[in-house]
Structure formats: C-alpha cells, structure tokens
C-alpha cells in the first residue's frame, strides 16, 4: 500500500529520458496482464510458425536432404530455381493462372452469393447458406468430381458422352493435359464458397439498418450505390479476411489437385508451386532446394496480401 503511494508521488519518468528498449520494457511491465494472456498463443505461434519460417529461410541456402548434415550453398539454390529449373517456371505460371482465375472469381462469387442470400427471408437463408457452405465443410467431398469425371468408361461423364454417341472411347479426364487445368479450376471454384462466404454473410448481418435509412435520406439512388457506399465499406474487416483466405487458398490448392490428378499431374499441366515444393521436399529429398521454393512462395503470397490490402482500402471511395 505504502509503495503504491510512493509511485504516485514520484514524478513519472518521461519517454525522452529513456532508451527505446527501456521504454518498451516499461510498457511491457505496465501491460503485463495482457502479455500474460497472449503468451500461450504467442509461444505456440513462435515455435510452430515463426521459427519454422525462419529455419526454412536458413535451410534454403543449404543442401539439406533430411538425413544428413546440411552444407552451406549460398545462393546456388535460388540461381538454379530461376535460371535452370524450367518446371519451376511452369509451376509459377500455373500457380498465377490458378490464383488469378480462382482467387478473384471465388472472392466475387462468395461476395455476390452472400449478398443475394442475405436478401432472403431468415429461414430460407439458413437453409440456402447450408447448401452453399456444405461442400467446404464436408472435407474431401471434391472427390465426387473424381467419380463424375472418372476415366473408366462407366464414369458418369464418359458413360453419358458414349451413350449420346459423342465419344466412342473413354476420355482420361484427369490424365489428359488438355482438361486437367480447366477441371481443377472448376473444382476449386466449387469448393471455394467456404469460410469467406460465411464471413461475408456474418458481415451483412452486422450492418446497422439505420445507415440505409440515413443514406436514402442523403440521396442514395439504387441498390448498387447502397452496396458500394454503405454495405461494402462497413464490412471492410470481413472483406479483408475473405480476401486473405481467397489468396492463401488459391496458392495452396495443391492437395485437391493431387487427389484428383495424381502426383505429378500429367505433363505438369496442373503443377503448382506447392507441388514443386512437395516434389523436391518429399520425393527427391532435397529439402534445401524445396525451402527456397517455399521462400519464393512466401514472398509472392506476402506481396499479394499487401496489394489486396491497398485495393480494399479503395472500396467505397
């Protein structure tokens, strides 16, 4: 009790009188409860996310092979990646095509769907939401596409085509370079109405109705203006969340492609950076090289996040 009084009577130390570290330490002590509460997550985050990312950056300069001690290789992994590895460039192209098509399209689709569904009466809305969200909660449901486009002549699409007389022989859908990419993009779009879609619906719910009334008094002319000037700016956090998800999903779509087309896809037609990373890390035991791929992927994703952030800040302006 007495100590407390002492502190109160003392003249508070000014910011200018301390070094930056001293100041930080003081602030930490002042907010120690907050730090204490965030500690468990922070600890796990550092151990399982920050350290691996840093390690991966470190390993990308070595020839680590999972079994023996790594040797320092300098930038040779990177130079090989950009100058010699043709398949990496192909993978980059595929990834960008994939991200450019599925990312924005799935994002817009989610947004539009959420907007339309939001207009429905609550009970119907709940049912429709479930229908749209179902594909992404039921785990590996994308495998129905495997049945649909089975290479067997008894597969749904093949059998239908043969029945209609359009085709005489079974098409090896997921084993044919012509169809692989298109099919994968379609499947990606189908499964993409996931978490971001739910976030949008939640976002629409939070908007204060009185804002629309105020806006109509202020002279909003149609629903589009309503959407652009009120709805979207109000739910900017949800949109940011959705965008980040869309980006990460479209870059990390590897597992679905592998499940559908096998690994690697025929002629690397749907080979993304994720696959390339798996290929070297898992199959060729070249973890050093695969780390450098991971670093590149990390940089690309980081950059696109910044771009998205910039773009979203323009919404409603």
């Amino acid at each position, binding site marked *: 009790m007495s100590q407390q009084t002492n502190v109160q009577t003392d003249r508070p130390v000014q910011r200018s009188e301390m070094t930056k570290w001293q100041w930080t330490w003081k602030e930490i002590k002042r907010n120690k409860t907050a730090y204490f509460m965030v500690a468990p997550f922070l600890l796990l985050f550092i151990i399982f996310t920050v350290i691996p990312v840093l390690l991966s950056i470190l390993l990308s300069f070595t020839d680590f*092979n999972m*079994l*023996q001690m790594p040797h320092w290789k300098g930038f040779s992994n990177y130079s090989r990646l950009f100058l010699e590895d043709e398949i990496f460039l192909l993978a980059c192209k595929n990834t960008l095509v994939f991200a450019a098509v599925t990312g924005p399209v799935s994002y817009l689709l989610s947004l539009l769907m959420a907007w339309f569904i939001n207009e429905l009466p609550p009970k119907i809305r709940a049912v429709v939401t479930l229908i749209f969200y179902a594909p992404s909660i039921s785990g590996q449901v994308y495998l129905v596409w495997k049945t649909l486009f089975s290479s067997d002549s*008894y*597969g749904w699409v093949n059998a239908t085509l043969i029945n209609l007389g359009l085709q005489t022989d079974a098409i090896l859908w997921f084993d044919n370079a012509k169809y692989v990419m298109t099919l994968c993009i379609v499947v990606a779009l189908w499964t993409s109405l996931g978490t971001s879609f739910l976030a949008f619906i939640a976002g629409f719910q939070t908007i204060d109705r009185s804002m629309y009334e105020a806006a109509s008094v202020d002279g909003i002319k149609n629903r589009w203006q309503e959407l652009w000037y009120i709805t979207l700016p109000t739910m900017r956090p949800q949109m940011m969340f959705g965008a980040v998800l869309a980006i990460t999903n479209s870059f990390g779509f590897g597992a679905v492609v592998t499940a559908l087309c096998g690994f690697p896809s*025929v002629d690397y037609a749907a080979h993304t950076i994720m696959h390339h990373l798996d290929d070297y890390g898992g199959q060729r035991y070249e973890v050093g090289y695969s780390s450098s791929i991971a670093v590149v992927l990390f940089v690309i994703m980081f950059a696109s996040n910044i771009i998205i952030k910039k773009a979203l800040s323009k919404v409603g302006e």
Partner: protein
Amino acid sequence: MKRTLFQKVLCFVLSVTILLGMTAITASAASLKGNDTSSEFETMQKYLKASAYSTYYAKYHPNGTNPYFKSGLGEVNIPVTSFTGEASLVKDSDKCNASYNADSTAWSTFGDFATLGAQTVYLPTSGSATWNFSISEAQASLYNIKIEYYTCQTSESSVSSIERKLYLDGGFPFTEASNLKLTKNWEYVNSETVAAPADAETGVTYEQTDKGYIKRVVYETATGKEMTLYTIAQDINGNSMTPDAEQYPEWRTYYAEDASGYTQGYFEFYFEQGNHTLTLEAEREPMIVKSITLVPIDSAEFRIKSYAEVQSEYAAHGYTAPANGKITQIEAEFPDFVSDSSVAATNDNSSCETFPSRANAQLFNVIGENSYNTVGQWAAYKFTVSETGLYKLGMRYKQTALEGMYICRTIKLSGGAYGLADGTPTVPFAEAYDAQFNYNKEWQSSYVGDSKGNEFTFYFEEGVEYVLYLECSLGSLKELIARAAASLASINADYLKILQYTGSDPDTYREYDFKGTMPEVLVDLLDQAIALAELADEFEALCGGKGSHIATLDSVSLLLDRMGKNNGMDVAANLATLKSNLGTLGTWINDSQKGGMIVDTIRVIPASADAKALPKAKAGFFKSAWFEIKSFISSVFTDYDEMGLTVVPDANENPVQVWLASGRDQSKIWRSMIDATGGYTDLTGNAVTLKLVTGGTLLPSILSGKGPDVYLGLSAADVINYAIRDAVVGVSGGEKKLGSDNAIFTSTVYTYKDENGRVYTTETPEAGKTASFVSHSFTDTVNGNYAKAAMDTVTLLDVSYGIPMTMNFSMMFYRTDILTQLNKTAPETWDELLELVPVLQANNMAFGVHYENQIKIMLYQMGSNMWKYTDNSEYAGAKVALDTDLSYEAFSYVCRLYTDYSFPVTYDAANRFRTGEIPILVQDYISVYNQLVVFATEIEGLWNMCSVPGFKSTNKATYGEYDEWNDTDGYYYNYDSCAAITATVMLYGCSDVLSAWQFMQWQTSATVQANYGNRMVALIGPSAKYETANINAIKNLSWSAAERAALEDQIAHLSSVVNYPGSYIIDRYTKFAFLNAKNDAANPVDALRQYIDAINAEIKRKREEFDLKTLEPDEEPDYLKK
C-alpha cells in the same frame, strides 16, 4: 439398315474363315509354359457339362418316387490299395515317413505304422488318384460315398481344410462334386494336466487370474483327483493373447455332402451295373485314406429321425428331467476342438455381463464372429452332466450379422448314444440342422430351438463325456439362398448375352429388337423377377418383417420386371443398373451365407428349468454406465505399443527396436511370434521392442536420432533412397561404396544356452551341443531364398541394403468358364492374347492390364533393360536404356494395346472380372487374389491364376535371366513379370548390430515367414494371403497345389527395375509419354523420345549429388571408348 442376302452370306463366310483360322493358329502354338492350361480347359468343360445336384437328384427321383433305389443292399467296399495315379501307400511315402519318424506323437492315433501303413494310401497335395470297381446288376442303386481319412500333418500341410474334386467315370456327377471339403481337427495348445488339490470339487470352473484366464477341469481318476488347466495367456496389461492352434491328427469319417451348404444331408449317387472309376483330384492339403465305401442310402447312419419321433422314444423309455440336476456351464471361448484355426476366441466389450470382462483390457470372452461364420466351420465342446436325464441347451449370444433375419447352426453330438463309433458326430434329429438364432442388436439369452418354437431336449447320461458341435449352416434358409444363387447365375448369363449383343454402353435410342433376337432372355428376366419377388415374400414370412436385408431382393426384382416387360424396350436403358444390381445381389448372397454371431456362454440345463436358469442377457443400467465410463477413461491411458507384450524389455538389456507400419493384427502376430517358445527372444536371448507406426514416420525419426534398429517393410525404392543418404546399413558387407558404413556379416555366429538358461554367442561351434540359433553370413542367409530380381532391387553398387520381406508381381487371372464357352484356352504369349482380342471384343469383352506395369514387363520380356551399362558397377544407372530400338519397340507395343486394341486404361478390376466383362486380367497377384476370394464368392472355382503371357521373338533376349529356347518352333520365349519388393532393413545408428542382424535373419527365414503367413490366414481368413518374398516359404503357405505351381512358375520368371539415384523420374516421364500417346494419338516413339533427355539430365544431377560417375547426353563411358 437392312442387310441384303448377299451381305449376310459374305459376312457368314468371312466370320467362319476368321474363326477357323484362329483355331488353327491357337492349336499350332506349342505349349511351353509350366502351367498347362489345356487340362484345366478339360476340367472346365467337364464342369460345364455337369448339372447341379438338384437336377441330378430330380433325375433319380422322378416326381418324388424312388425307382432307382433297391433296399437291403450291403456296402460296396472299394479296395483303396489298388489305385492308379499320384498316390502311394503310406508306408512307401517319403512325406509320411519323414514326419512319422520326426514326430511320432503326432501320429499316435494313426495306429501301427508298419501294418496300417501298408493298407492305407497317402494322397499328396497335387495330382489325382483313381480307383476301379464294378457294380453287379443286383447292386445298381443309390449310394453315398464314405471316406475314412486321417488328417495327417506333413511337411506339405498348411492351415487350409482338405479339398478334393470327385470324378465318377471320368466326369463330375454334378457340379457340387467339384469341391468336397473334408475338415481337419484343430486344438488350442494351452492345456496342462496337474494333480488337483485335495479340496478341489470335480467339475468345471472358470477363473480370471494374474497368469491369464483359466478354465479348470477337475475329474476323478483311479488314483485320485486330477486337474487340467486351459489357459488363455495375457500380456502385461491384461489383454488376452490368442493361444496357438495345432492340427490334431486323427481318423475321421466323411460322408459326401455339399460344401456350399445348399443341400441338407448327404449326397446320393446312382451307380448302374458295370465297371466304374472313382477319382479324387487334389485341390488342397494332403490326406491319408483308409477306406472308400459306397454306403446304401437306407443305412442306419442316414436314417435321421424327426424331433417328434425322438421325443416319443424318450417318453417310451420314461426319460425325465433330472431331479437334482445341476447346470453345466460352458464358456464358449474355450472350444476343445475347432474346424479351422481361425475359429478362435475373441474379445467383446459391448456388455459388462459377458464373462470375463474388464473395462481396461481386452479379455477373450466370446467366440468369433467374422472368422466363425462360413458354412461347415464348427467349434466343439466337451461336457459331462451330473445326473442322467433330459436337458436343454441355453445360450447367451449376440447376432448382428443379418439385419432382420436369423442365422442357423447345426447341433451335432458325439459320445454316449450319439455319433458314430469312431467319434464322428451326427445330428440327434432332423430339426437340429436348423437351430435358429434371431437378429438383435442387444445380447440375448435363450434355449436352443428351431423356428417352430421347439426348445430342443436331449438325453444325457451321467459319467459319459459328450462333445457338442456347433456348426455353421444355412439351416432353413439354404433352399431360399440356393434359389437366389440360381437366379443370380441365370441373370448373369442373361446379362452376358445382352452384353455380347449390345456392348456395355448400349445406345438407348436404338431399337435392338430383343424380342426378335433373344426372346428367351426377356422371358428369363421376367421369370427371375417373379422368382426374386417370391423369395422376398418368403423371407418376409420367415423373419416376420421386412428388414433392409430383404429389400435388396425387391429392388432387383423390380428392375428385372421393368427390363423384361414392354418387349425389351427398356433393356438398353437399364443395362448399367442391372450390372450394379448383379454386384449387389452377389454381395447379398455372400452376406446371407455368412451367419456370424458371438457366443458367450452355453449352458446344459435340466429340461424342467424355466427361463430363469438361462444366463443373464443384459446388465443393469448403472452397471453398464459405470463400465462404459471406466472403458472410456482407460482408453486414454492405454499404450497400444505394449499390445501383446508379455515381459517388459529391460532398457539395460538393450532390446532390439523394431518398427513396422502395417495393421494391428500384423503387429500382434509378430509380437506373439517373437515372444513364443522357439521365437526370436527364446532362441537368441535378445529382447525386442516392437512398435506399430504409421507410414512416413521413419524419415523424421532418423532425422531426430530416435529411429529404430530394424524396420520391417520398407519399399525397395526407399531402401536405396535411404542407403545413398547413409540412413540404412549395407548388410551384405563388402567394400564401402557410399557414405554409410557396412556391417560385415561374413562369419557364422552360434548361439548357445548354458545350464542356467543364459545365452552366449561364439564363432566356433562347440562340439556336442546344439546351437539354439545359428546366424549365417549374409551370402548364406539369402542364398537360394530369394529371386535374383528381388535381391537386385535392394542392391546398389554390389552392396545389399536389406533382406526382401514381401514380393508382389503381376500374374494373369482368367475366367475359365467364359474362355471355355468361347472355346479358347488361356493365352500363353502376347501374340496369342492379341489373337483372342477380336473374339472377346466381338462379345463386348475386354482385357484388363495396367499400363505402368505393362511397360516394365514388356521392356524386360523383349530383352531390353531400364538402365544402360548394367555390366559396369561405376556407370550402372548413369543413363536410361529407354532410347534403344528394343525399348522403343516395347513401349510402342504397350501403347498399341490401348490405342489400336482399345484396352481400357481405367477399370474396376474386381467388379468387371466378376461380371465377366473383363475375363482376363494381368495385375498384381496378391491384391486381386485376396479381393476375389472374399468379394466374388459366386465365381469361386470359375477362375484361375497363372503366369503372365510371354513374348515370342526370333532374337534372343539380352536381359532376361530365364529365356527359353524351344527347339520345336525355333523361337525365343520370355515370360518375365516385374517384381516389387519391400524389405527388412537395419537402420544406421543401430547399437547392437549382431542382435539386429540376428533378428533380420530370423524374421525373413522361410519357417518364420511361412508361420506368419499361415497365422494371418488363420486369424483373418483366406483373404489375408501374405506375399512373402522368401521362395522357400511359399511351399508352406495355404495356396492350393495349382496356385502354388503357378506362383512358382512365375517366380522362376521374374525381372525387376533396379533402383539407382534418380530412378523416381523414370516412372513419371514414361507415364507422361504413355498418356501423350494415348490421349493425343501421338507417335509412341516420339512421345517417349522427347522425355529421354529430361530423364537423363535429372539422373545426372542426382548422381552428381552423390559423387557418382556421370555422363553428358552424348557421352559414352570410358570403359566402352576403347
């Protein structure tokens, strides 16, 4: 479009010419392979000629009369010792002599070997023996065939039942005679007899002790009381462990009966006047025959009384329920004898009322469900009663196998007035064939009885030892299931006929005119629709409701009805649905035949008792709830790695750490084999920790230094991958080639036990002592045990990095019935196969083969290789040999199969094989075989497995190890299939190299591998066949004679793709090349050529990583430059 008469005639003439031409070609091809398919072609023709037993029976009983039967005839004895064919007198048989001398106790019941051996005949596991006999005019009548046989245990024996084909006068009397099953007798080796304590009461008690779960039988002898203890041992956590089952050789009597269970009672054969032959052809297992007798069907053993008759006899004798009779309790988990070693005790913790049960351990407390459900399997229990009189049988059981239906057991008895003189059990009355057990999700307790509500009573005498047999049967369902099976066969035939006419994807808009072309098919579809609908109704009446199980019949019936009506207009549209329904119906029949239930307790209860004397079926609510809570909590703390562990290995003793990535059953079997008497620990004194891990755990564990000493089942590609990165020890020793050290196992190490049971090792053998384990050098260990192809895949630069454990390779599976109908034999070369293609395609059938395997097979059969410079260890694997002319030719050949001949690339092998759309499959043998055995039981006996077709060429193949030169037609043949290996390896950092090496030797030795394979089949059933890599172990696995011959034939013709650094890239690019050729109809050679540089570049890069010699694209190695 209507064809003119001229076109029709022309087509006919052309097709006849083609057919004749092909027959000529097929006939001219010499039979070169080890497996002779023509004899089996004959067998199949005989089979197809024969009718079903029901037809045969009807022939000799026209309109229910019996004109062919003469009463009062004596038995006809066929002199067994005068035979022709592959058999020998027991006395002269090497096989019997060897085991007779080696283990005379096993033969104790055989009798006097010297005299009896000259009167009995040994029938080996393969070949057939024929007996001649004649029937006089007076003797012409209906007989059953009785065989007295001895279930001998010889070096050829395995876990299967004895199976024989029966021919009369050179043909099958009816189709069911093609598979006679003679059961063996198995006994669990878990009993010991000791002197009983003075205060012990006679009788049977069950007790759960620290040593395990014990059945205690105390009985009076002339000298005092004795006690036999039957123990189910337990591991350190109290989980029960399956006791070893041992075949118990004894004389048994077999009366010919239906192995499928469709026909109740015994077969009746008609023998007319004249000379006859009787032939027994071996399918599985050796046997010894003492007599073969034709028994008139009115003999005493066939006169089965009805239950009412038996009851009135009891009344006439004045039998009543015993006044002071005690209940005799039999715990079902302790059978005295079983028909198969898979009929075994197991654990069920679904009710705490089941005795014994413990929430935190799996105690064996019931007898099997999944492994004790096939017609003919039985478990037998000895019991005595305390007082003479009438008794009932009470049982506590749970039947959840057939929803809404009941299952049946046949009750057989022996002892006292029951059974035959030699101890063979019989049914006490006809109703005992149909003891009925209803479906219920809960445990039930009831008196054993039939569908009419009879609770069976039996007369038992005090002091007599009875044996109760509970045999799986179809009971009263057999007739219905037989009808369903007949319907399925008929619909299947209809389906194939339609298929041959329309193809598998008929055009729904086309008018096929089924009414004009195949009216009989439409009529049959409608007939079968009615038959199935009737069946469904009868099932409903029998079971008192429509379970989901019965609904299947209705839905198939509706479909057939729709297809048959309307002049067949809807046949085309519904053909695909019919196909899937055929599968469903097949599965339905399969399921209906498998009547599994778990039995906890059987009680022999005085007949006067009421339901209170039955065991309690369900536990009370609170008791159950508490048990569930305890189970849940203990499940959190259970260490599953300790499953089956009997002694905790002392960490100071430095146990061998073994990991395996497979199932829990496999892990438990290995655990018990390691710990068993005569197992690894017993022989070498080294403790073992066995851990079941998930695949992919090995790599991180090595990385973190926590890896095992020995790993079981690492794929050959990974063996080499790990080896070049110093993670696996080269066990063959020799010069150090790569980074890792090689363990040198060049000397023989002998392990001895001193008088205290302590174990020590020495390199010099001690005179006068037998070593408990001899650890050979690497060369001696693998010598003669493995195919060269198998060793090659785990060898790099002359150093071997593991011992092969499993070996899989492609074999050819074909439907004998379909080929016989098409009048074709199985193709022996690819040329013959391609000649068969038009015939099959004309019938809308296809071949099934996977292109990835086929590319490799073709490459080696044509005499090429995957790699260049294999003759030089420095440059071996530096370049692929895919760019040689031979390789291009092989690759093009495979591509043509799919482009020109339209082989399907993707297909559901088991289903299409079952329906007959793909009557020939070339695929990995173990998975296809195991799947067909359980999945497609309706085509059992209608398919065969043989070695893959070979390549016929005018040039001698350069790679193949087993090329054949045939003088008669001047061609070279190569039948190589491609082997895929998993191996047992020693990991780098292993602390006790010798112990680990001893473990590897023990684990891969022929006896241990065979033992493991047989245990798998014993525990899981016939679908758990094990693909051991040890050639010498295959002899003792439960393959039939024909299957084993086929396997050995293929093993003699094996090649393999050797793994070198970078070999993963080859599969990838050959796949790309193939798909390009297939999808875009690209020239196969061009398609492959464009990847050659990429493959070689990747290999070069990989070789540089490991400092191996590399080559530029157009560079030749130094040693060739000279």
